[in-house]
């Protein structure tokens, strides 16, 4: 049970921690106070608790598809604000919008991932003999996930400014693709778009069960057996975000 809980909590924390570390590093590079993150985290945790407590009610909405609809909205919300972040990154006059977008992204990511953590832990609170190992495992998982975030943060801020921007933008581009890929999966799961067959299978190369598969999933939404819609939306979101990132990078270089 302990190992399992390490894995579950790690996966959830890693996704939120990765976004948070990149945005904190960008704040550092732009000489913006990083205090926005505290408010965003608190809002995210409140939102995650509310979502977790009301999950049964939310799930039963829209013929049992309420959960997918809320999660799709969260993914779209994060995606839109990742785009705004990438767009406003090097525009000093838009600093307020930039900070606001980072708050929305981090808060929404915590709602999405944090609610699963709360639901998971809460399920074990009624099973005393398992609760302690699950809590210990969860703490280890959260610790590893946060450490990876801290590692990324220091990695980025210790690069030269140009490399730091490139690296951060590359991660945001991959995260944006991953968000759209996960959103498509939920659209299919809820039957909100016409059902699709799988177009290829790379599980022989990198299995989603493997550690590498899990890391690739957290980083760029890796999927061994995608559908056509998923691949198309993934590519489209990567292209759009890369376009925005390129524009932003040019502005940054011009500004010196």
């Amino acid at each position: 049970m302990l190992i399992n809980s390490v894995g579950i909590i790690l996966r959830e924390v890693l996704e939120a921690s990765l976004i948070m570390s990149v945005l904190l590093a960008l704040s550092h590079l732009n000489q913006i106070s990083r205090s926005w993150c505290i408010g965003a985290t608190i809002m995210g945790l409140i939102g995650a608790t509310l979502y977790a407590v009301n999950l049964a009610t939310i799930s039963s909405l829209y013929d049992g598809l309420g959960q997918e609809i809320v999660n799709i909205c969260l993914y779209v919300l994060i995606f839109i604000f990742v785009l705004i972040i990438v767009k406003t990154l090097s525009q000093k006059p838009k600093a307020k919008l930039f900070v606001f977008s980072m708050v929305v992204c981090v808060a929404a990511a915590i709602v999405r991932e944090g609610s699963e953590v709360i639901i998971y832990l809460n399920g074990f609170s009624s099973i005393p003999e398992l609760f302690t190992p699950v809590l210990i495992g969860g703490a280890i998982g959260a610790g590893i996930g946060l450490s990876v975030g801290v590692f990324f943060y220091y990695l980025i801020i210790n690069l030269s400014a140009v490399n730091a921007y490139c690296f951060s933008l590359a991660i945001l581009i991959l995260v944006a693709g991953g968000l759209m890929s996960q959103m498509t999966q939920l659209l299919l799961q809820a039957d909100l778009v016409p059902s699709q067959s799988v177009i290829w299978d790379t599980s022989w190369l990198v299995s989603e069960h493997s550690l590498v598969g899990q890391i690739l999933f957290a980083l760029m939404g890796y999927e061994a057996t995608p559908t056509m819609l998923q691949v198309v939306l993934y590519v489209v979101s990567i292209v759009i975000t890369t376009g925005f990132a390129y524009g932003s990078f040019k502005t940054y270089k011009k500004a010196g």
Partner: protein
Amino acid sequence: MLLFAVISLPALSTPVFEIEIRNHLFFPSELTVPVNTKVKLLIINRDSSAEEFESYELNREKIIPANSKGVVFIGPLKPGVYPFFGEFFPKTAQGKIHVNEQ
């Protein structure tokens, strides 16, 4: 013709399969669904703790809160075996979906 037939199929004709979760086990733990067909899984969690229905092979993941039910659409699937599991209690909550040639 076949294409039109598929498009015009009313939503009601989607076959429904029920899976119950009891004591962190799936009932039935193995089921067979039709090939190349969209299928609706109705997952009923009778336990007092939440479970997450998950399958890498089916690309599906959904939390089923305690004492409640959830809907997951899967397919159309090629013939094969598609394992699924309960992410919160993976030692016991294991199952397989079989898709056989017609």
